[in-house]
């Protein structure tokens, strides 16, 4: 793995306050989900997962068809669809629209897709003010940081740190009471909502038969973002499609419960097109930006395209014992946790962070809780194989490759295996029956093992020796 990855992990592990914050936050989400899917409350939970997986599989396998149907429906309701192949095309579109409409202020609701393409940075570079309105996103925008978690972006921030931020960036008197901090943000953002020219949102789902954008939230900022300004732009990856509005019966039930243990989030918006002529309020213009940015690459891989089923609930993060130790900022890209570990190499290439697919014990907790049944461990195993193939091509990792070649040879020759075992036993340090703290020779893996725990002493006799002596 890269030194940067190693370093970030180490720093996170060395920070006890941060460790506690991550553990508590994810622990709470784990518990809330568990309560929400208890058999008497949600008896059809497993059935819903199977169904959701089947719908996503069908949609992804026929994605072109559903993209076209979606486009037609959006346009039938007075909206426009903009296909963008990458980050630059999205910002070009937003900038040119803003220029045409003389827009200066944009309000944004939470969208991992817009984080993925650094939309705010690009807009600010061109002197457009783009304000995050989800409380957690607003905080990290003030801090110039990336989201820490898909659902809880400011999970790592204490109230003291939030107080510092608000005072530094807004000039308000220092306030450490959380409710009051929230009200400060509310007041600032309220003004922004009412003054904004454009509202940019994400989309949890795109509904093909309705040309609709579905957004779930608890605060109300997405509703305000999509209802107050005269222009609404929804930015979404092409994989967000589902065939029918009726499919929401399955997906909404799974999303709320998996993410936060809620049956439904406070607000679920189903938006199709600008305000109808006789409606009183709503935007005059409605755009849906459909983003590729590497999704078609993932799509091309038959075994791994299931990575695109993800509905961004965050359950895999919450249940991952590795994420719960290393946190969101150790990950090299905007998506963290198990889903981040499989998306990052597929989008950015396995060489971007070759250690990433290995940063897992393959425990399978993620696959167990994934509402759309993505087989994350299986994909990690495939990616590991791809990393090793890339290393072979690049001439890297020669020593390890050689070690495994020798190992395989030994394992195919039982006599050699036995001799190797006996040799290791005679060389290995012994401590009677006690376990070993230090070894006289401390080669790489041995040193790594011993840095954390003791080593078992080699058995005086192997099993096969004991078997023969029976």
């Amino acid at each position, binding site marked *: 793995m890269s030194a940067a990855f190693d370093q970030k992990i180490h720093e996170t592990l060395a920070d006890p306050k941060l460790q506690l914050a991550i553990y508590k936050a994810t622990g709470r989400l784990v518990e809330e989900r568990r309560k929400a899917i208890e058999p008497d409350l949600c008896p059809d939970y497993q059935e819903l997962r199977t169904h959701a997986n089947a719908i996503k599989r069908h949609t992804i396998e026929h994605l072109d068809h559903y993209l076209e149907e979606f486009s037609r429906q959006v346009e039938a309701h007075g909206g426009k669809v903009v296909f963008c192949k990458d980050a630059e095309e999205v910002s070009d579109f937003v900038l040119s629209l803003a220029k045409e409409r003389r827009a200066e202020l944009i309000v944004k609701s939470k969208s991992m897709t817009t984080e993925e393409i650094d939309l705010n940075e690009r807009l600010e570079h061109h002197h457009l003010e783009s304000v995050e309105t989800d409380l957690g996103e607003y905080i990290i925008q003030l801090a110039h940081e990336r989201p820490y978690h898909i659902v809880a972006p400011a999970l790592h921030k204490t109230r003291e740190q939030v107080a510092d931020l608000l005072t530094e960036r807004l000039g308000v008197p220092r306030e450490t009471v959380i409710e009051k901090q929230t009200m400060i943000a509310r007041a600032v953002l309220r003004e922004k909502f009412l003054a904004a020219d454009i509202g940019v949102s994400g989309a949890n789902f795109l509904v093909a038969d309705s040309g609709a954008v579905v957004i779930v939230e608890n605060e109300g900022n997405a509703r305000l973002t999509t209802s107050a300004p005269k222009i609404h732009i929804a930015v979404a990856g092409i994989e967000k499609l589902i065939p029918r509005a009726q499919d929401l019966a399955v997906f909404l039930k799974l999303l709320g419960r998996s993410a936060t243990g809620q049956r439904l989030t406070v607000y679920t918006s189903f938006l199709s097109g600008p305000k109808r002529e006789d409606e009183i309020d709503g935007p005059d213009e409605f755009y849906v930006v459909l983003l590729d940015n590497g999704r078609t690459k993932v799509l091309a891989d038959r075994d791994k395209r299931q990575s695109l089923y993800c509905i961004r609930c965050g359950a895999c993060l919450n249940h991952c*014992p590795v994420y719960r130790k290393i946190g969101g900022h150790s990950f090299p890209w905007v998506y963290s946790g198990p889903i981040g570990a499989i998306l990052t190499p597929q989008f950015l290439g396995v060489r971007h962070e070759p250690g990433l697919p*290995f940063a897992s*014990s393959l425990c399978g907790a993620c696959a167990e809780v994934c509402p759309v049944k993505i087989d994350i461990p299986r994909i990690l195993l495939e990616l590991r194989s791809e990393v090793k193939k890339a290393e072979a091509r690049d001439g890297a990792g020669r020593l390890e490759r050689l070690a*495994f070649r020798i190992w*395989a040879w030994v394992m195919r020759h039982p006599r050699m295996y036995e001799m190797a075992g006996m040799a290791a036993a005679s060389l290995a340090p012994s401590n009677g029956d006690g376990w070993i703290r230090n070894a006289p020779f401390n080669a790489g893996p041995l040193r790594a093992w011993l840095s954390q725990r003791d080593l078992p002493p080699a058995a005086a006799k192997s099993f096969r020796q004991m078997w023969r002596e029976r």
Partner: protein
Amino acid sequence: MAARVSLFVTCIVDQLFPRVGMAAVEVLERLGFRVDFPEQQTCCGQPAFNTGYREEARQVAQHFLKVFADADYIVVPSGSCTSMIAHHFEDIFEEEPENLRRARDLEMKVYEFSRFLIEVAQVEDVGARLDEVVTFHDSCHALRELQVKEGPRRLLGHVRGLELREMDAAEECCGFGGTFSVKFAEVSGGMARTKIDSIVRTGASTVVSLDSSCLMQLQGALSRAGLPIRTMHLAEVLASR
């Protein structure tokens, strides 16, 4: 004629924890099975497979297919090795029809130790006795890939003198994960320590699991922490009298 069971003892038990293998043999023989040990056996290939070296894993898996070709039943005192054989051999031999067929045959015959007792031997009481307060660690492969959860608990429930206390983090990974334990040693160690906190909270004197790799990880961490709690493989508990 007593049914014949072939033991795949696994390389880690063979070299580091042979008593686990002997205990498994003892329990199986006590239940009337004839145990054989194909001496040509070595490893299932998992270390290579999990580290991304599929070709090397394939070679070792092929050797395994040969060694156990004639087995009626293959019993394995490890969830992760059983899972490798029962689920991943198919991935390895995907492009080789003959080996794939053999792997599929094998899949039907291979059993993790506790599952063999419950489903084939159809016993829950093996006549064991152990006066200890124990807690059970659900090893990840056994739990999530083999769906082994209740079986071991039922077996432990019949051990005279044994009190089983559940830890709150029973299903959490111990942090071993093969080469993960050395490539990401700090994280692995952290995971072990979290697990140990949960173990300590039960007041148990012994941690039981059906995977020696987990036990090695946990015992290593317990020992480093200076805690007197010991680890035992399920087979060792069931062999106790």
